């Protein structure tokens, strides 16, 4: 960005960007209108005719204007239509009130009974009031006047009560529901309305009633008392209504035709405008030199792409008929370049997993190379069941087989993650099948795939199989865990011991790999300081403690010794000079332990102290030469770019460096214990998976299968299937995925990964289209 110091509004192409933004707003408005009218936007196959941007702009302005006008007109018409409709209904219903109302006046003195009143007479309130009204009424009918109108049904009750209160009960309120729903223009939805007629007397009452009507949003329409006049007006209103209907219809069809013609081009236009805006945004990042009439830009490009870029620039010069060629000049940079890993669809998912933690520094070792295999492998160690593995494999294969179709669809966020990780899922399932075969678990059932078990009863009657146990009469089972272990009482002690030791061994192996990668990093960056004062003491420390533990585990397994490894490790620290007695695994163990302990103790200050002091010395040496000045490297023809990144030399802050080194060392030392223990989660999760699997198999499926009833069997099978699918396949998969990820991000990567780089983000028209939607 050469124009960092200018605000967004000072940049050269800001007007064009504004125009593009305005055009895209209009396009969005048009799109909304099309959607509201319920038309499907049919996209024509993309015509590559380049519509001129200015012509497009004026076209869009015209369309928008036209559409706004049409909408306003149709709204007005609609409102008039609604009012007329209401008027018609009021005429119909109110007319019947008035007719019967006439008969009341002539029926004074008659016994007033409820049955006399018309059927749509609602409440007892009005009954008593009618009595009052007719009793207190003078016999002349001119005092009794009325107002008729229509009001939403929800407000009728309150309206009535207000009217009673206002007129102190001196009124007669008739109401009838409307026959059909009417569009309420305030809330623009169809509501039920009620037609009412209010009989009252007196001028003051009239004004009060009118005000209340207005407050409640009731529309009042004058209804003539005379019957013939009523029918006449009703006819007129009906006529006008049908006229309006046709007018409205024509208007809507006209608008839809206009929208349709726009809709055809809409997506092309939107695309064009997006591209133009992106181009102008990018142009804004360049520096426009008005005097020399040229644009200057700085950017990054991969080295392998240089010839392609030069070729593209030549083509651009030719195509745009410019007088002067484009100059492409490689310059030195002080700031760190972005990181660019070329990935294909398979490796992309893994690179994203690694990048989620942090993008690699420029030219640092990429952990994704190993993660491709170790991540699914560690997942499988925690998930190991070849039945479940086959289910996962089927899922992954389905996703991969329908790759083409699914990648063009718009998926929900969960499906999208699942689809993006389909190759990860594939490898995870393959390794799960392998680990399942090793753990010998098929939905927790062991099989004798690789031959007979190595265990059998001590004698023919198997009498002490339940007390003392079987006996091992052959070599170990050739591949995996012996099937005799499943279901036995000593299964858990054996498997726990096996899995815990396995976790430690995997942990030490992966951590050593991490430290080796840090060695290769230092080698690449020619950082011999790091090699001598960080890599070597780290290797010594980790391996003299936990590498030694791994060695002890292997020796114990090979010799079958009864030594207690906890005891050995703890007393190596507490009393290293004591005799080992029955815990001796090999000759020379005690002196070896003393040597290892001493080297671990030496390694700690080795990684802590020398490096800061040497760094300070180096820094002092470097700045001795500074006093003679530094020759600036020659720059390009357009000179003195203030925004161009130039790095300022910093002061050497010794205390900061020392504290940093101390933190790093303490983190490593304490971390070596905690990280090794952290790998025990491999044991924990695999135990959990195996136990859940066993429970579902034994307590659900076998239990249900024990009954003869087919219904119970079906139900049991269904419950087993659901539990397997949701708990084991989904929840356990996510759980194992998460823990394997954590092991990679923390325990593996903190041995060597910097992860403070930034990604290479080239400008791309294709990425634009994906971006906005």
């Amino acid at each position, binding site marked *: 960005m050469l124009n960092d110091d200018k605000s967004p509004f000072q940049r050269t192409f800001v007007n064009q960007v504004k125009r593009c933004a305005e055009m895209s707003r209009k396009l969005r408005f048009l799109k909304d209108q099309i959607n509201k009218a319920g038309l499907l936007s049919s996209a024509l196959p993309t015509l590559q005719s380049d519509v001129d941007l200015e012509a497009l702009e004026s076209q869009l302005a015209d369309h928008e204007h036209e559409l706004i006008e049409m909408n306003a007109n149709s709204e007005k018409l609609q409102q008039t239509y609604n009012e007329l409709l209401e008027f018609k209904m009021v005429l119909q219903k109110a007319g019947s009130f008035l007719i019967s109302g006439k008969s009341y006046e002539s029926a004074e003195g008659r016994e007033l009974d409820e049955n006399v009143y018309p059927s749509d007479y609602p409440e007892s309130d009005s009954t008593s009031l009618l009595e009052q009204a007719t009793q207190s009424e003078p016999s002349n009918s001119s005092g009794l006047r009325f107002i008729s109108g229509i009001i939403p049904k929800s407000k009728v009750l309150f309206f009535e009560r207000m009217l009673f209160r206002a007129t102190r009960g001196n009124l007669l309120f008739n109401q009838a529901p409307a026959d059909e729903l009417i569009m309420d223009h305030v809330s623009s939805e169809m509501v039920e309305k009620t037609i009412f007629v209010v009989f009252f007397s007196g001028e003051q009452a009239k004004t009060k009633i009118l005000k209340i009507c207005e407050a409640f949003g009731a529309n009042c329409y004058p209804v003539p008392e005379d019957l013939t006049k009523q029918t006449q007006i009703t006819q007129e209103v009906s006529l006008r209504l049908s006229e309006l209907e046709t007018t409205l219809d024509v208007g809507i069809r006209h608008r839809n035709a206009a929208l349709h013609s726009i809709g055809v081009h809409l997506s092309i236009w939107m695309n064009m405008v997006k591209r133009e805006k992106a181009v102008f945004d990018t142009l804004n990042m360049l520096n426009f030199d008005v005097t020399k009439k040229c644009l200057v830009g700085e950017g990054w490009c991969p080295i392998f792409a240089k010839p392609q870029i030069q070729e593209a620039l030549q083509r651009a010069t030719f195509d745009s008929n410019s007088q002067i060629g484009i100059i492409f000049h490689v310059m030195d940079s002080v700031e760190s370049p972005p990181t660019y890993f070329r990935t294909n669809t398979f490796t992309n998912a893994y690179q994203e997993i690694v990048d989620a933690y942090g993008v690699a520094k420029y030219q640092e070792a990429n952990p994704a*190379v*190993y993660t*491709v*295999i*170790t991540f699914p*492998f560690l997942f499988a*160690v925690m998930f190991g069941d070849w039945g479940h593995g086959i289910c996962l494999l089927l899922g992954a294969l389905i996703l991969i087989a329908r790759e083409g179709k699914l990648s063009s669809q718009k998926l929900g966020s969960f499906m999208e993650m699942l689809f993006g990780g389909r190759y990860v899922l594939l490898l995870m399932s393959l390794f799960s099948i*392998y*680990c399942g075969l*090793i753990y010998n678990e098929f939905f927790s059932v062991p099989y004798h795939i690789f031959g007979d078990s*190595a*265990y059998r009863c001590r004698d023919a009657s198997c009498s002490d*199989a*339940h*007390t*003392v*146990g*079987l*006996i*091992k009469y052959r*070599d*170990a*089972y*050739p*591949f*995996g*865990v*012996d099937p*005799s*272990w499943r*279901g*036995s*009482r*000593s*299964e858990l*002690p*054996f498997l726990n*011991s*096996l899995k815990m*030791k*396995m976790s430690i*061994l*995997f942990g030490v*192996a992966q951590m050593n790999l991490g430290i080796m990668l840090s060695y290769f990093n230092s080698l690449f960056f020619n950082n011999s300081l790091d090699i001598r004062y960080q890599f070597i003491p780290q290797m010594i420390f980790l391996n003299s403690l936990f590498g030694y533990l791994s060695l002890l585990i*292997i020796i114990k*397994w*090979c*010799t*079958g010794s*009864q030594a207690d490894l906890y005891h050995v490790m703890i007393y190596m620290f507490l009393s290293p000079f004591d005799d080992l007695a029955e815990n001796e695994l090999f000759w020379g163990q005690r002196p070896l332990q003393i040597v290892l302990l001493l080297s671990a103790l030496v390694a700690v200050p080795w990684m802590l102290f020398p490096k800061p002091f040497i760094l300070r010395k180096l820094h002092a040496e470097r700045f001795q030469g500074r006093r003679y000045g530094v020759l600036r490297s020659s720059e390009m023809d357009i000179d003195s770019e203030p925004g161009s990144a130039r790095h300022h030399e910093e002061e050497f802050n010794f205390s900061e460096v020392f504290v940093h080194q101390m933190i790093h060392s303490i983190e490593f030392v304490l971390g070596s214990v905690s990280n090794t223990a952290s790998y025990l989660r491999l044991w924990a999760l695999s135990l959990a998976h195996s136990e859940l699997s066993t429970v579902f198999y034994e307590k659900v499926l076998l239990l249900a299968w024990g009954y003869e009833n087919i219904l119970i069997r079906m139900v049991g099978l269904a419950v087993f299937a659901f539990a397997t699918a949701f708990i084991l396949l989904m929840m356990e998969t996510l759980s194992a995925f998460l823990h394997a990820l954590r092991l990679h991000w923390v325990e593996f990567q903190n041995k060597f990964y910097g992860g403070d780089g930034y990604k290479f983000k080239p400008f791309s028209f294709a990425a634009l289209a994906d971006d906005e939607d």
Partner: protein
Amino acid sequence: MGFVLTTLIFAAIGIIASLCARICCNKGPSANLFHLTLVITATICCWLMWAIVYLAQMNPLIVPILSEGE
């Protein structure tokens, strides 16, 4: 089959797999190295898993004690 024999089998499978990868997808030195890394890593991981489980069962300290109802 013994420990050493099976280890040799794993090594042989690994070598065959790398050769296959080189023959099928020969896409330039960097990609080739990457494929080789993947195959070797996978072979080592699988072998390690098998070897650990095998070694643990070579000289076990406890034996299966059947539970009631077997």
